[in-house]
């Protein structure tokens, strides 16, 4: 599903070139639930941005769903983001001026779907996250956990091939975080491919596989011990 080989990303100023990712290689198979962990500044968000085609790599190659996407133009990347990728952000990033229905509608609009098709998908997605009764509410009227569920519904509505989650429970209390995590696990069980960036070792432990990133490089690939809820980090 996702394959990055020897990927690099550097930011250049007049005097210095800083690498956010260096010789970064990873493969995520279809249906996998992978957690990417690492300290702040390790490059895991840069990885997620490149995986989500929000940024382009400086070097190396990136294949998504069998297609080389590392050198695509802006329009093509937008189309792929819209058609194949679903985003879940730490800060939910719902559009405050739109109600729940219209927020979930946004990615479908850019697909030029018919009104009836959009309506069906929005209904199903909100049903899935248990918020179909709140369609006409605005984000500010919902709790953090509910907002994140709306964001998940928005990501699911377009039936993406890949779900990218950036600290999806980072802004939630424990109870809400558990509920959101449970939802992600259910979605995964239904066959979705999920890549989740997180600080939280407890969440990482609930993924199928953990990838640890330090200084822009993958330092470890391993199966997460799914039975242990207190695993903090998996080292080689």
């Amino acid at each position: 599903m996702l394959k990055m080989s020897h990927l690099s990303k550097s930011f250049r100023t007049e005097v210095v070139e800083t690498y956010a990712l260096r010789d970064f290689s990873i493969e995520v198979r279809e249906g996998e639930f992978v957690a990417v962990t690492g300290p702040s500044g390790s490059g895991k968000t840069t990885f997620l941005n490149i995986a989500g085609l929000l940024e382009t790599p400086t070097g190396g190659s990136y294949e998504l769903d069998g297609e080389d996407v590392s050198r695509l133009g802006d329009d093509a990347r937008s189309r792929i983001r819209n058609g194949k990728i679903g985003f879940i952000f730490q800060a939910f990033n719902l559009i405050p001026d739109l109600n729940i229905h219209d927020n979930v509608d946004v990615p479908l609009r850019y697909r030029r779907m018919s009104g009836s098709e959009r309506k069906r998908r929005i209904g199903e997605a909100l049903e899935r996250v248990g918020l179909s009764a709140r369609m006409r509410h605005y984000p500010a009227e919902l709790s953090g956990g509910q907002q994140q569920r709306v964001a998940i519904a928005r990501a699911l509505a377009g039936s993406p091939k890949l779900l990218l989650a950036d600290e999806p429970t980072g802004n939630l209390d424990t109870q809400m975080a558990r509920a959101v995590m449970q939802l992600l696990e259910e979605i995964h069980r239904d066959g979705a491919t999920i890549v989740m960036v997180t600080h939280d070792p407890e969440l990482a432990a609930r993924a199928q596989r953990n990838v640890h990133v330090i200084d822009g490089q993958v330092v470890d690939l391993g199966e997460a011990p799914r039975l242990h809820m207190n695993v903090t980090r998996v080292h080689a």
Partner: protein
Amino acid sequence: MFRYYGWLAARSLRKNPALTVLMVIAIGLGIGASITTLTVLRVLSGDPLPDRSAHLFVPQIDPKSMDDFHPGEEPEDQVTYPDGVNLLNARRADRQALMSGGAVVVQPDNAAIDPYMAEARYTTTDFFAMFDVPFRYGSGWSAADDDAHARDVVISKKLNDKVFGGGNSVGKTLRLQSTEFRVVGVLDAWRPAPHFYDLNIGRYGESEEVFVPLETALELEMGRNGSMNCWGNESTDKPERSPDCSWMQFWVQLDTPEKQKAYEAFLDNYSDEQRGLGRFPRPNNVRLRNLMQWLDYQKVVPSDVRLQVWLSFGFLAVCLVNTIGLMLAKFLRRSGEVAVRRAIGASRREVFVQFLVEAGAVGVAGAVLGLLLALLGLWGVRQQPGDYASLAHLDLPMLLITVLLALAASLLSGLLPAWRACQVAPALQLKSD
């Protein structure tokens, strides 16, 4: 998608009504001021005879004495009676008309209408055909009537309505200065703007009410209006007939460039011929300006009107800069929304169009307001005493220009903000790490 963008624009504009109203007022004021001044300029600088102005010419010759002679100066704007008659009788143009303005006392038979002074034009037969004057009833008089000093008169629609109740009055009698004239033609509504064929008696005033054969008017010594320029030392009792006083307007119609060249040569030859007769002491100095060149030469459009147009467009530019600033602030405040839209599939172009539609919506509202303000402004102009004031109306072309100007203005003011908005880097904006 445009419907979706329109819906988003409406929501966004409704969300912050004060800001929206401010932007609409800024554009509306700029448009209103620009269209008001532009309409006035258009009225003043318009072509009164668009179909034939290129073929109508004012011949100028220089019959003046050597007093105050300055080489290169312009010849007289008007012609003397002897020169006018000579040029008229030479019949070297496709059409030609000699004329002067005047004023006559109209004495209606109907006792209910008091005698009154009416503006008059004393001219020759070609005047009506040459200037495409529209007739409601009858026609002008003939060349034979000119020669016979006929007591014929062509009257305006206004006079016909007033004196004859608007019916077909051809053949009826109209008393002018105690002389009975036979009505041969009644004009339809006709008010060329400017009053190009004689700019000495009000540049944008109404047309004359009475048209009388020139020789008839001279014979009856009907009152003359306009300016007269005399030279030389000899005083004369009848300056109208003097070869040293210019006071008449002479126009010719020349349908081809060849005829124009030939007519210029004719004017040169005429000057030579007159010098041979002891007149025209100055070197030959002839001009042949067509109608629009003549209006330009006569500086028909007041310079303050042009200045007003420049100032109002400067004001529009200031309004636009303000609108750009407001839109820029508004759009960039929505960087978060842009980043989300970009992340979940909107291309830069789609974001750009979305914001441009919002700017366009402000423009449409600005156009409507601008149009209302322009109508108000033109109403204000019409309340002024100037002779062109009553002409200040918004016509269909100006209406279209208003709408286009408003849309162009708002899209222009939305271009930079929309461009900046679509350049938002989603990764940076959404960064939560």
